[in-house]
């Protein structure tokens, strides 16, 4: 139902945009500070979709001795909030027809928004798993099987009905990495798990004392634009 609503919304926008004549500028975020994502129920994903996506992000970035995986780091929450917002609706993109298949050099030409594409891919993955694994959902499969399926989708050997599975994988991987490494204010990178993994100090914004300290480990912990874990609960 939600998928259909999102699709209808985007076609309505298309029809509006196709009218010729003066139009006000396309809104840009301009001077608005980013709104902090608050933990809480998923806004775009259904519970079943969220379970599948949490399982996917936890294989793309698995928990291990180096630190949290994608699930604990909030990658699924990040993706949910992005899909519910302007990015998920392709709000700033040129979406006037005709939509033609071009060469790879000409870039993406799909009229489908990230929200629609991500949802369709999750549905196709679930359909495939329930057929192939006697009714079991992707999230219920052992990690080794999940990894194998994701690898096959990535390299194009596993097709999913009705969707471009490779493009879907690329979208999920891109958004998972965004969620792992973006500022925690967007709901991912919780406890700065992504930044701590690699040693990125975040929004420190002043390294004048460190420029010429060649090869020396940076001493301060990471900080985000909303502060840092420990300053307040929302970390």
């Amino acid at each position, binding site marked *: 139902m939600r998928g259909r609503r999102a699709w209808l919304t985007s076609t309505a926008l298309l029809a509006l945009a196709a009218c010729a004549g003066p139009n006000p500028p396309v809104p840009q975020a301009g001077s608005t500070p980013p709104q902090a994502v608050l933990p809480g129920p998923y806004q775009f994903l259904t519970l079943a979709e969220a379970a599948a996506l949490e399982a996917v992000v936890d294989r793309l970035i698995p928990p291990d001795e180096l630190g949290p995986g994608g699930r604990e780091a909030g990658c699924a929450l990040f993706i949910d909030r992005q899909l519910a917002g302007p990015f998920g609706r392709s709000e700033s993109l040129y979406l006037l027809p005709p939509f033609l298949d071009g060469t790879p*050099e000409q870039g993406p030409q799909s009229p489908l928004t990230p929200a629609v594409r991500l949802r369709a891919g999750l549905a196709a993955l679930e359909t495939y798993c329930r057929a192939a694994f006697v009714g079991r959902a992707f999230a219920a499969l052992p990690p080794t099987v999940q990894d194998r399926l994701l690898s096959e989708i990535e390299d194009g050997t596993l097709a999913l009905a009705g969707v471009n599975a490779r493009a879907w994988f690329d979208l999920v991987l891109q958004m998972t990495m965004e969620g792992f490494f973006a500022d925690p204010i967007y709901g991912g990178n919780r406890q700065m798990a992504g930044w701590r993994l690699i040693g990125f100090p975040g929004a420190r914004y002043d390294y004048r004392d460190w420029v010429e300290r060649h090869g020396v480990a940076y001493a301060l912990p990471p900080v985000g634009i909303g502060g840092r874990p420990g300053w307040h609960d929302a970390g």
Partner: protein
Amino acid sequence: MPAEPLPAADAVIIGFGWSGALIAEALSAAGLGVVVLERGPYRDTASDFPPGFAPDELRYAVRHDLVVPTAQNTITFRNRAGQTALPVRQWGSFLPASGAGGGGVHWNGQTWRFRPSDFVLRSHLLDAHGHGVIPGDVTIQDWGVTYAELEPFYDRFEYLAGISGRAGNLRGRLQQGGNPFEGPRQRDYPTPPMRMTLAPTRFADAARALGYHPFPQPSANLSEPYTNPLGVVIGPCSYCGFCERFGCGNYSKASPQTALMPVLRRRPNFALRTGAEVLEIARAPDGRHARGVRYVDADGVERYQRAELVILAAYTFENVRLLLLSGIGQPYDPRDGSGVVGRNYAYQTTASVQLFFDDTRFNPFIGAGALGMVVDDLNADGRDHARLGFIGGAHLAAMQSGGRPILSRPTRPGTPRWGGAWKHAVARDYLRNASLGASGSSVSHRGAWLDLDPTYRDRHGRRLLRMTFDFHANDLRMIQHATDRLAGIGRAMEPAAMVVNERRGPYSIVPYQSTHNVGGAVMGPDPATSVVNPWLQSWDVANLFVVGASSFPQNPSYNPTGTVGALALRAANAILTRYLPSPGPLVSR
């Protein structure tokens, strides 16, 4: 339905990037009433990118918050005639700005002067090597301005912006530590070079040992506090690592905001209207005189601004498109090479080398857009192009612009894109990698041009600009030569692993390469091969000046902004000292 005209301005300027802001400053200082129309939103340091939320990689670098939304304006693209051009729905290869400050807000700040030979490229090559050296379909030409004529305006731009660097050639005398290949300059840079992190330092050591002449990249990220000739104070760079694609929260990257706006906004004869998207340059019935511009304001209402002078100072694409939509100048026809508007589009030919070390910690998060060391030995003039088999050249650099982890977390070759092995690799490699780049020239040629798309239109119903472009074989040979030498310097830095990212055709609109799109409304001494004369005045409409990198007849290897600034200041000077005393063509056709 024509809108009621607004009271006439002395000058209306289309676009408030560096070009528009510099000309607005010069004309308003001379007392002219100036109205600037900017299609994007108003932006300033304190309100729009304060340190509190400026360092936001997702918002600015990934979601492109300072770039014009493609929903508002985009182009269509194809590699060659015969293909159907398709719209760029999502920016990739380049990121055209919109909003007050334009690309001057989110640029890196790498500030160059072109070499003296760059301005006379065709005659220089013919003199040095004879006719055979220029491929038959290559349409490179002289600019109609010399380095010596432009030098005072380079100087003015550098001093307005406070550029940090070290002179390599002071009035003909070579200086230790600067670029020995630059043209002679009257005086040194206004501020000293930036301090260097480890990767550029190692690069310079290795390059020097191989016989090259490394020097610090001239930078608009200022090494120390500076007061410019207008009395505006620009702050010192904090090496925060959020420069390219970001606004600067420290007032330390030179931009229209930090260098000019504090003065401009106090002048009663200056007005900046944002959210104002120009539809057309309106002309008198004889077509030889611009009357003003039609635009849509921030409320979606169509307006007509009359003006004595029209300065077209938008980005390259919109400069060319507005000329075509307004019917000014003869459109280029690639079939017979006739016409000029849209002719000689050129780009930048780039490649890179990634180095991975086992133990050396480079701290890539420390950075600035123009922090780095450069080698200019492999650039255009003074080389045996007949033997090399190409014209043009490249400069090589280790730039450390900031290791922001969504887009910049390279791993060693053979690493998967996800999973446990990826996680271990990124944890090992993030702090211990360094990247080197080659930025190469781009010839203009018969297979590269801009025109109006036959199918796709913007949300006002106007035709989009269409780009037809692929790398010329000359440029692929040139960049391969440079890449091999870049890899040689990389190898001399003794990495544990190295990846060479060579540039191959066909050109793709998808991966980011450079926002140095040039040409299409080129300058020159001959109206048969240029849109504007050497003062950037339209050959067809005497009270129209077209300013920006759209005037470059081809692209040298260097970043364009220094030359864009110098050309804008020279055009403003010509308007004040030559055009206004006697309005009319400054060069007769």
